[in-house]
Each structure stands twice: as structure tokens, then as C-alpha cells.
């Protein structure tokens, strides 16, 4: 069963929505409200924008309102698409079949700060930056810090099972969300955790439903409340960047650092040659470095002063073991401090010949093991070059690899190749080429035993069609779960090949 696309709502349905909401201005059917909730930052086929415009937008404040809207959508067979920050780098919040956008930005309350049992309960529409402004009064913070820290919202973090730049030290979204309330695709409001307790971190009761719904990408419901971890603000931070003349030396240095046993290591990042070339070329805030530098390893420690001081000596030794050169305090402090903003700097790129144009950013966010990073880098770079040469609308902004396991720095990495796309020039031909390009990158990941997406989800063309392959035997289970929980396929339909769940 493929859910039919819904572009307009009957007056009666709009009246029902207004009755549920009971607040002027909370049911929006005007064209500007719908047009402005059609896309996310991920590359978008702007030439076909009109085909994705939803039928209506609703701005709820309570779980009960969300529940009633979802029940109405089931009765009327209208797709429902949850939208939090709308800052995703995959298509989770893009309404592929129109319908009702359930925009949770007004659910941005901080409901409880519990300093005794160390957690905070919030609505899904709050950003981590705003939450931490409040928490800073108490000397604590919620350490989920993606590059989109100032703009992504808690609901989207759960829907995408997000990655935190400090995840190696403090955990990622799945570790930092203790429990959450979710409205199921049929309208029931439930709370899921490791077991049943709202503030319980570890349980062996029943199935671990939190993990089923974590990363649901809007296909299994709408999160309406979450209880989050808070941790003491670290007393000390120590960042260090090491420069290398050879990628493999930098790659080996990563291994030395992550296996050193430093418990305060919050993250490491490997920059490849293309990344440095891009930053040198087009980032006016990037600190100049000697021409021999072609790779960088960036690291950061967080903890008590005593811990960090001792660990910093080990870190400096490991960072230099393969000939790495410390790049200086300016870069260590300045570049690490700008880690949130810098992610968004690819607002421009260059087409062959060097002309600067506004470009959209695709971040291929694979999970890959350390051993395969050099091979994947080679193959991704070659694919990118082929499409750049052939189509003239792409740019390669290089590769970052971030340590990605929670609480332990070794083993696997979020490996991202950043591709620029000149959206203004998109048409059906080059958009199809882009999807093929994207798909080829994904296939490299699968070839090397990786996972397609570390933190953005697999909801877009070029990812979605490979989900069954990655999931293997688990794909059938996924389909059964989807169909059982969402019998009418109204919850964010068309994503991740999940329409297959409804084929009898």
C-alpha cells in the first residue's frame, strides 16, 4: 500500500484540526506556511519544490493535541510528517506525500530540572543551546552537541539518533535521552525507556523500546517529551590540533591516541587533504598553515583539571609520535571553539574553473571502522571527481572522520565526505545524476562493512534503496514493526523503502 499524496485538505478536515487545536494561528493552510516547511538543509530538487508542498501545518502545544491530530489523520488517510528544527541533512522532515506537517517548535518548555537524580525533562521543540543557557545556572549541561547545536531541536535529535561532537566522552543522543514520550502512528501516547521508569538509565524489564523508537526518522510516531541526561560542566577543556605531511601518518596517529586509555578524550577528528585544501581556499577564518600540511588530527579532552592536565601530556606525546606537529594554541582554542559554526560554512563552493557559487551541502555520514578509512577515502574521492568533471555543478569539500563510539574512542568513525551542489542549476537530468552519485558513495560504505548513516538517517534517494541490503534479515522485522504500529501508513510515508511493508 502506497499512501496517496495529499496536497489539499477538505474544509471539514481543517475545521476538525482547528477544533482540536483551539488556538488561532495554530492551523496554517496558507501557501507561505506550507512552502516554507517543505525542505531541510540537505540538497533539494528546487526545480520540483512544488511537488513536495504539504497540505497544512499544525503547531501543537500538547501531546494530547498531537494524538488527536494523528487519530484524525488515520480516519481521513492523510500523511503526517513530524517537523522539529527542520535542520536535518537527510530528508526525514521532507513531506514526500504532502499531508499535515506537525511542527513541534511550540513544544519548547523546560518542564523539570532534577538536580538530585541528574536529569531534565523538556518538550521536543527546544534546542540544546537554549536548554544549556538555562542549565548553566546550575553548573550542569546537557552534552549533546552536534555541529547543529544552535539550531537542531531535541525531537529531531531523537528521530535521527544524533551524533555529538563530545560523544566519545559523554555519549550520543541515544545515551543522553533517558526516556521519552511518543505518540504512536495510531494516536496512543506512550513513554519508552530502557525499561519503564522515566528517569531510569538501565533496566532489564521487557523489551528495550527506547532503542526501537530512537532513530525512527519520523516513521514510527512523534516525540512529545523527553527526559535528558545532565552532567557537571567540565572544569577543564584541552584541545590540540596536529598537522601531518601524510594522510597515513595522521590515520595511524588516530589509533595511537584512541588506544592510549585517556578517559577524558571527548573526540578526535581527522581532516584529509581535500578538506584542508577547501578550508585554505574558501574559509576566511581558517588559520594559515605551511604548504606541506595535508592532514590534521584534532582532539579535545574534557574533565577535571587534575585529569585533563595529566592526560594532556599523554595526548601531546601520542599526537607527535608519527611526526605530527602541534599547530599552536590559536588554532587549538579558536578552531575547536568554532566547531559548531564551521560545519555550516559550506554555503559556497567552486565549479570547475574556479567560479564561486552558492552551493548546498551534502554530508555523507557513514559509520566505518578505522581500518577501512584510507580505502574508502580513495574510492569516495574518485567517485566525486568523476561527477565533478562530468556535470560541472558539484564540488568536493573533503572528508572529516570523527570518533563515533560512546564512552570509548576506538573502533569506528563517523566518516563524512562533504559534497557541494549548485542547487540553482538543478534539473531532472543532473538531479538524477546526483542520486546516482549519492548511491555510489553509499555502496562503497556497504562494501567495506559500514553503515549508511551515522546520524542523519536514510530517508533520501541514494540512501533509502540500500537500507534493505544493510539490514539483511532485520529488514523483514522492520517491515513487520512498521505495519503493526502504523497500519494505515500515514506516519511519514515513503521513507526508507518502508512502503514494502504494505505489499501483501
Amino acid at each position, binding site marked *: 500500500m502506497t499512501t496517496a499524496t495529499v496536497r489539499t485538505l477538505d474544509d471539514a478536515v481543517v475545521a476538525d484540526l482547528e477544533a482540536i487545536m483551539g488556538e488561532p494561528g495554530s492551523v496554517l493552510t496558507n501557501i*507561505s506556511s506550507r512552502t516554507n*516547511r517543505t525542505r531541510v538543509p540537505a540538497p533539494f530538487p528546487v526545480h520540483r519544490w*512544488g511537488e513536495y508542498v504539504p497540505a497544512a501545518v499544525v503547531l501543537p502545544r500538547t501531546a494530547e493535541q498531537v494524538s488527536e491530530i494523528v487519530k484524525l489523520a488515520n480516519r481521513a488517510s492523510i500523511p503526517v510528517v513530524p517537523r522539529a528544527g527542520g535542520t536535518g541533512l537527510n530528508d526525514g522532515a521532507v513531506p514526500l506525500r504532502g499531508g499535515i506537517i506537525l511542527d513541534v517548535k511550540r513544544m519548547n518548555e523546560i518542564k523539570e530540572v532534577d538536580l538530585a537524580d541528574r536529569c531534565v525533562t523538556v518538550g521536543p521543540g527546544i534546542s540544546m543551546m537554549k536548554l544549556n543557557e538555562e542549565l548553566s545556572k546550575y553548573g550542569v549541561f546537557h552534552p549533546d552537541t552536534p555541529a547543529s547545536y544552535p539550531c537542531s531541536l531535541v525531537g529531531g535529535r531523537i528521530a535521527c539518533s544524533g551524533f555529538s561532537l563530545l560523544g566519545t566522552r559523554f555519549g550520543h543522543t541515544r545515551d543522553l535521552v533517558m526516556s521519552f514520550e511518543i505518540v504512536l502512528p495510531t494516536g496512543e501516547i506512550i513513554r519508552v525507556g530502557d525499561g519503564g521508569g522515566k528517569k531510569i538509565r538501565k533496566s532489564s524489564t521487557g523489551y528495550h523500546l527506547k532503542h526501537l523508537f530512537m532513530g525512527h526518522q519520523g516513521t514510527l510516531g512523534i516525540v512529545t517529551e523527553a527526559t535528558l541526561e545532565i552532567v557537571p560542566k567540565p572544569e577543564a577543556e584541552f584541545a590540540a590540533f596536529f598537522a601531518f605531511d601524510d594522510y597515513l601518518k595522521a590515520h595511524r596517529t588516530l589509533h595511537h591516541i584512541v588506544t592510549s586509555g585517556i578517559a577524558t578524550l571527548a573526540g578526535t577528528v581527522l581532516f584529509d587533504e581535500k578538506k584542508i585544501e577547501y578550508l585554505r581556499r*574558501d574559509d576566511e577564518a581558517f588559520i594559515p598553515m605551511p604548504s606541506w600540511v595535508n592532514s590534521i588530527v584534532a582532539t579535545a579532552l574534557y574533565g577535571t583539571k587534575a585529569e585533563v592536565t595529566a592526560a594532556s601530556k599523554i595526548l601531546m606525546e601520542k599526537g607527535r609520535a608519527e611526526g605530527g606537529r602541534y599547530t599552536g594554541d590559536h588554532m587549538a582554542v579558536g578552531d575547536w571553539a568554532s566547531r559548531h559554526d564551521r560545519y555550516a560554512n559550506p554555503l*559556497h563552493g567552486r565549479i570547475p574553473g574556479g567560479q564561486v557559487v552558492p552551493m548546498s551541502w551534502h554530508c555523507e555520514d557513514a559509520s566505518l571502522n578505522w581500518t577501512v578509512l584510507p580505502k574508502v577515502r580513495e574510492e569516495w574521492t574518485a567517485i566525486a571527481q568523476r561527477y565533478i568533471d562530468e556535470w560541472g555543478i558539484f564540488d568536493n569539500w573533503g572528508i572529516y572522520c570523527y570518533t563515533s563510539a560512546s564512552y570509548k574512542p576506538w573502533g569506528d568513525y563517523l566518516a563524512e565526505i562533504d559534497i557541494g551542489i549548485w542547487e540553482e542549476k538543478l534539473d531532472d537530468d543532473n538531479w538524477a545524476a546526483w542520486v546516482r552519485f549519492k548511491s555510489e558513495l553509499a555502496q562503497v560504505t556497504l562494501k567495506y562493512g559500514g553503515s549508511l548513516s551515522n546520524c542523519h538517517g536514510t530517508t533520501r534517494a541514494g540512501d533509502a534503496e540500500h537500507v534493505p541490503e544493510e539490514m539483511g534479515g532485520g529488514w523483514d522485522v522492520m517491515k513487520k514493526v512498521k505495519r503493526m504500529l502504523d497500519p494505515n501508513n500515514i506516519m511519514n510515508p515513503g521513507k526508507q523503502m518502508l512502503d514494502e511493508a504494505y505489499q501483501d
Partner: protein
Amino acid sequence: MTIEKEQSDYSSKPPTDGQQQFVERWRENGYNCYSSGHKFCREVCPVMQVTRNENHTPTAFMANIIAMDRGLLDIEDVADDYVHCVQCGGCEIRCPNTLFVGDFYQARTETVKVVRAARALMVDKGLDRDGWKLWNRLTRDLTNEPVLGTTDEGQPQGQAYVRNWAEGLDIPIGGETIMFVDCEAAFYRTSNTRATAQVLQKAGVEFGLMNEQWCCGGPAAEMGYVEQSRAFAEHNVNDWRASGVKRIIAIEPHDYIHFTEDYPAYFGPDFDFEVVQIVELVAELIKEGNLVLDKPINKTVTYHDPCRLNKRKNIHEAPRFILNSIPGLTFKDVDHVTQWSYCSGGGGGLSIEKPDITAEISRTRLARARELGVDMLVSACVWSERPLATAGHDVGIEVADIIELVAESAGIDIGGRRGASELEATR
């Protein structure tokens, strides 16, 4: 129910010339944001913080240009959205494009200009809002803004009353330096104007008033009435030239923006006047010993960074220096970068069209002040002081202008009316 424009169809809605020109002028700037779409600006935007409606985000203001270009929207579809902006510039300085690459590519995000251009297009097409229409008609008739009300024509406002605030202060007309008196300060919060004039007199600064001071024209420009703004600017510049004026003291941040950004754009290199902002001038007078502050003010205060000083002109050190120079004052500061997301909601014509949103923005600002445990919120923008003082009344926090505090500490008996701040006196 039928909803139009469900499909992208480039040819179905040929835009009018004005809209086409708007799109062509701003398309590249629009794509600079659209291509990113990361929305770092969203939680900084004072309006968005209150409405939580994505239509009111700077990102939407930019994306609308692209949607118009693609035939999905017309200006009439987004006219009300473009009203939801105070033109504070917070989005521009929080934009990664500005922070990292904008100057490099000469492609800085310019949301304030986009909003003003969209509003100008609305005026051209008769889509301007009723409140703004009335406000600007009365401003044209009175040659000053109708700050005492748009309904009662008997109010003492307009050209005949523009110097009433100065009664007894013996300020000459003309001279090389003139003090430009903002409309809100001339008619509504006259304590601000009287304090400023007397502080300057006490410090020995020679200045005069204009022969015939019209509104600076800034509010008209902000609401999209470009011709009216330009006509007012021409009058004022002619008045200055007729009196041999060389230097303008801007006592209000909106005027300062208009004189330093719009007037030069209107007149090009011919605009050769020196424009001085009052907080920078007063800080200098204190530093040089020309103004002695020796009367203690025993209050606990915090400072509200006016958007146009802090976010748009990077003026944030002088007011902090001034507050730290006042004896007796306990100053609980909030840094100017944190204040990128603060606002009174009083700018950009918002308070005329959407007074409820302005009031909510001011309530939010006062709630932040209240957490600091202060008695007083000090601003340096008379336009912010009315909504802030109204919100302050409800939470028991007084709102004052920084120059009023300076005057008090300099032993000056200010006089005049304190507008909404007088509400506190009745508590």
C-alpha cells in the same frame, strides 16, 4: 477547499515588474542562505523566539525570494510574514556565512535589506498594512511621527510642538553641531531629550537645534515607504546646510543607523556630515574629565544592549564604560554576544502592526533582567524604553535611559516626562 499553486509552474503566474526586480536584485543573496538553510539564526531572532512560527524566520525571508523566482509564491502570499521583523540584525551576525565566508565572497547575508526591500515592494503593490499606512500618512502630515497617538488629533505633536521639550534650556538654533531629537524623545519621553541636552551643556559641548526638524525618515524606510524616507532626508539635510551644520549628534540608535547607512546611500559622497552617537560622545566626555559624575545612584541595574547599537553597529563598550563610571551603581552585566538574542520588540514598525508580539518580546527581556535580581533595566534606545517600561511595570523593574542616569549622577534636575516609566511612580 482549494489551495492554489500546488504545482511548480513557472509560467502560470508571471510576476509583475516590481516583484521581478525584487527577485533579480536579491536572488543571489537569497541563494546564499537557501543553499545552506541551517537556521543558526532561528533561536537568535526575537520574533521567532516568541511566535515559534517558521514563517517568521530569517531563513524563510530568504527562501521566499527563491520561491518567488520559481513561481511558487507572490509577494502578497508573504506580505504578512515580512511584517514579523524588527530589523535588529541578530540573524545576520549569527549567520555562518557572515562569520566565516561572507566577506571573503562578498556575499554577506543581508536580511535587513531584504526585509526592507520586500516591504517597499508591498508598498508599491498596495499590500502595505493599514497601521503602517496610517502611521506614515500622519508622519507626512505632521512631519514628525505620531508618537502620542494616531487617533486623537488634538495631541501636542508635530512640527508646532517639536521643540516644546526644550523649554527653559536656552538651546540656540543652528550652529556647527546640532542635536537631532528623535520623535519618540521629542514628544513622548522628553526626560531623555532634556537629560541629553543638559548633560551636553554641563560638559561644555556647544550645540544647537535644527531650524525645522522633521522625522529622520528611518521608520518610513523600515516600513517600506522609500519615497517618504528620502523626502524627509532631503529636508533635514537642506536644513543642516542652511545653518552651516557639520556635525550631527544622534541621540537615538535608529536615527544613527539612518544617518550612517541610508543618508549616505541617498546622497553619495555629498553626504559629508560627521555623525556622532550619544553614548560614545558621553563616554568620551567622562573619560576626558569634561563630565563629572559624583552623585551616587544606589541601584542594582543591568544594561539592555539596543539592537541597532550592538548588533548592527558593534557599539557595546561605551555604554558599559558609562555605567561603570556612575558611583553607587551595582552593574550586573550580560555580555553583548548573549544579547544578540535580546530585544525590546520596539523596532522595525513591529510595535505599530503587531503590538502583542512587541509586548511579549519585552516581557521576555524583563524576565531575563528579573533573574539577575536588579531594580532597574537601563537602555540606550528611547524606542525600546516604552515597551520595556510597560513590561517592567508588571514585574516591578524600573526602566531608564542611560543618559538620564548620567544626568542624575551629574546632579542635573532633568524635568520632562518619562513616558511609560512613570507608571512605576504609581506603584
